[in-house]
């Protein structure tokens, strides 16, 4: 038995190193900045679970922490449910035909290790890995252009323990282009200075522009969006002059709360405000050809009720969880939607289409009622007209169409999720 004991010791030590010193969140107690109320307003077990470590989604945004917690059920609880969920009356379509509707390649940035993985969606084959250039040591962001071969990645340095809650970290941006077979080239630095306080970024479908949102400086107002030309580094800036934070509802999308329409001109963003009831959010469309200046003046609001989006203290019974995606044609939003009944609680998770014009739900693509939060949903990518999307239903990544759900191959699932005794978790955050 000694050999087994030694082996167990060795493996336990190695396994424990998946928890890095730098990743331990700070403890916030009364009397310290950002503390939570003792014994009150505590999270609902499971439902308000963090989606990912503070390393990638730092806690310096109060609403982000809450939104992250809400959306946590979407991605950190991926494997709680044990079922491959399909609505009655639908089944998997021809797999290869369905998989042809979604991007061939993805880049997934890791939670616990260093290298980003380039994978093939339809097979789960690893086509290459990429390490962050020194002195930075991890990937904080990734966003994909529309060609499935151009990705923008952001790297950051590790911070000391205790910095996590208080200090936004610098981000250096790189372009990664895959060859025709999907194998990655080298990371090429973008002509954009290292930025701090990034809360979201999205590369335009044609790969020519990069939108970046920033949180306000500590204690001030003035969230910003900058759009850079990736050819020249020229930028245009809009400022949200009032209260509100951009990019708070970042997850589960690796690029945060910014998304382009297919016209390479219209950018969707969300603004979250802090109120006594929680952090309601609103969605806007920015015309990036407009002169820089006021973000509000250059944008139009999508009339989704603010209380349907974001996080409410009262654990509102109906709300969108996570950042909705906008279809390339700008006509629809697709979003994971959540509702619950009064005790005894029944949780409902859907993938729902909304009209951008009216802000109202127009179609439910998937619906699961459950006694737990484990049947949660998320949407990671949607095509131009909303006829195909990459979604998560319970524990499974798959292609959701108007009528069917086709799970991605086990090898692909395995690159993204990890089993655990009390559930599963996302180990790499993908961008398609």
């Amino acid at each position, binding site marked *: *038995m000694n050999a087994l*004991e030694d082996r167990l010791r060795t493996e*336990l030590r190695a396994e424990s190193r998946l*928890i890095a010193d730098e990743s*331990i969140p700070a403890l916030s107690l009364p009397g310290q900045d950002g503390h939570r109320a*003792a014994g009150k307003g505590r999270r609902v077990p499971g439902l308000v679970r963090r989606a990912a470590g503070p390393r990638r989604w730092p806690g310096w945004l109060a609403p982000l922490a809450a939104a992250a917690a809400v959306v946590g059920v979407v991605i950190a609880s991926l494997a709680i449910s044990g079922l491959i969920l399909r609505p009655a009356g639908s089944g998997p379509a021809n797999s290869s035909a369905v998989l042809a509707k979604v991007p061939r390649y993805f880049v997934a940035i890791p939670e616990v290790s260093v290298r980003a993985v380039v994978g093939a969606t339809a097979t789960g084959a690893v086509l290459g890995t990429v390490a962050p250039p020194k002195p930075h040591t991890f990937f904080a962001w990734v966003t994909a252009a529309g060609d499935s071969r151009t990705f923008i990645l952001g790297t950051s340095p590790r911070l000391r323990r205790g910095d996590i809650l208080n200090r936004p970290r610098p981000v250096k941006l790189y372009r990664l282009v895959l060859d025709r077979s999907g194998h990655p080239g080298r990371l090429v630095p973008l002509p954009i200075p290292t930025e701090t306080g990034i809360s979201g970024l999205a590369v335009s479908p044609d790969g020519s522009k990069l939108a970046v949102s920033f949180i306000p400086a500590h204690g001030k107002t003035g969230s910003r969006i900058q759009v850079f030309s990736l050819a020249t580094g020229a930028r245009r800036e809009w400022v949200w002059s009032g209260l509100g934070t951009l990019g708070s509802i970042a997850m589960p999308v690796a690029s945060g709360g910014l998304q382009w329409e297919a016209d390479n001109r219209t950018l969707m963003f969300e603004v979250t405000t802090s109120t006594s009831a929680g952090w309601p959010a609103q969605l806007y469309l920015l015309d990036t050809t407009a002169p820089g200046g006021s973000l509000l003046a250059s944008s139009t609001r999508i009339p989704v009720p603010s209380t349907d989006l974001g996080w409410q203290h009262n654990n509102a019974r109906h709300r969108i969880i996570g950042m909705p995606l906008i279809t390339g044609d700008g006509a629809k939003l697709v979003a994971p939607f959540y509702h619950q009944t009064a005790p005894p609680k029944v949780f409902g998770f859907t993938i729902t289409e909304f009209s951008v014009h009216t802000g109202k739900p127009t179609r439910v693509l998937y619906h699961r009622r459950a006694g737990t939060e484990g049947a949660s949903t998320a949407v990671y990518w949607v095509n131009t007209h909303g006829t195909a999307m990459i979604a998560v239903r319970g524990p499974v990544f798959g292609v959701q169409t108007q009528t069917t759900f086709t799970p991605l191959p086990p090898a692909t699932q395995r690159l993204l999720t990890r089993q655990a*005794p*009390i559930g599963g978790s996302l180990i790499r955050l993908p961008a398609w």
Partner: protein
Amino acid sequence: MHQQDQPRATASAADATQAVTALYAEHALGLTRLAFLVLGDRFAAEDVVQEAFWGLYRAWDRLPSHDNVLGYVRVSVLNGCRSAIRRARRTPRPVAMPHAASAEADALSGEEQRAAVAAMRRLPARQREALVLRYFGEMSEQETAQAMGVSRGTVKSTTARALAALDRMLREEQ
């Protein structure tokens, strides 16, 4: 993880914040790793540890002595792990992920594919706790018994049964 590692946490109640913060700075990593090994979920582990330190903070004034606050937190962490596992039992089991298809993918996920640890995670929670405390925490049978709230004999038998089960599972997989 040893008793002698714990700081001299003899601060008064008025210094609770400072004392708890200092204790957290020193032991959060080890305790989070311990909870992670029991639970297999880093975020659940972080939550459990944070809750344990919050519990310590709230109970600070009521503690009869501050000589063994690390032991108090360690017990809280284990209790928190048990609660998390109980909550998870109300949910369906996770789908089994087959092995990765390619050698490269296998290599990439190798850090998550430690056979003994994977097998340990299929053991009952108490056996898992015992193994983690004994072989990761390097705690004696007596220390493990205190942390688990059981007798030394129970630790001995639980550990033996866990190792035997682990051995059997690993042989079956070969």
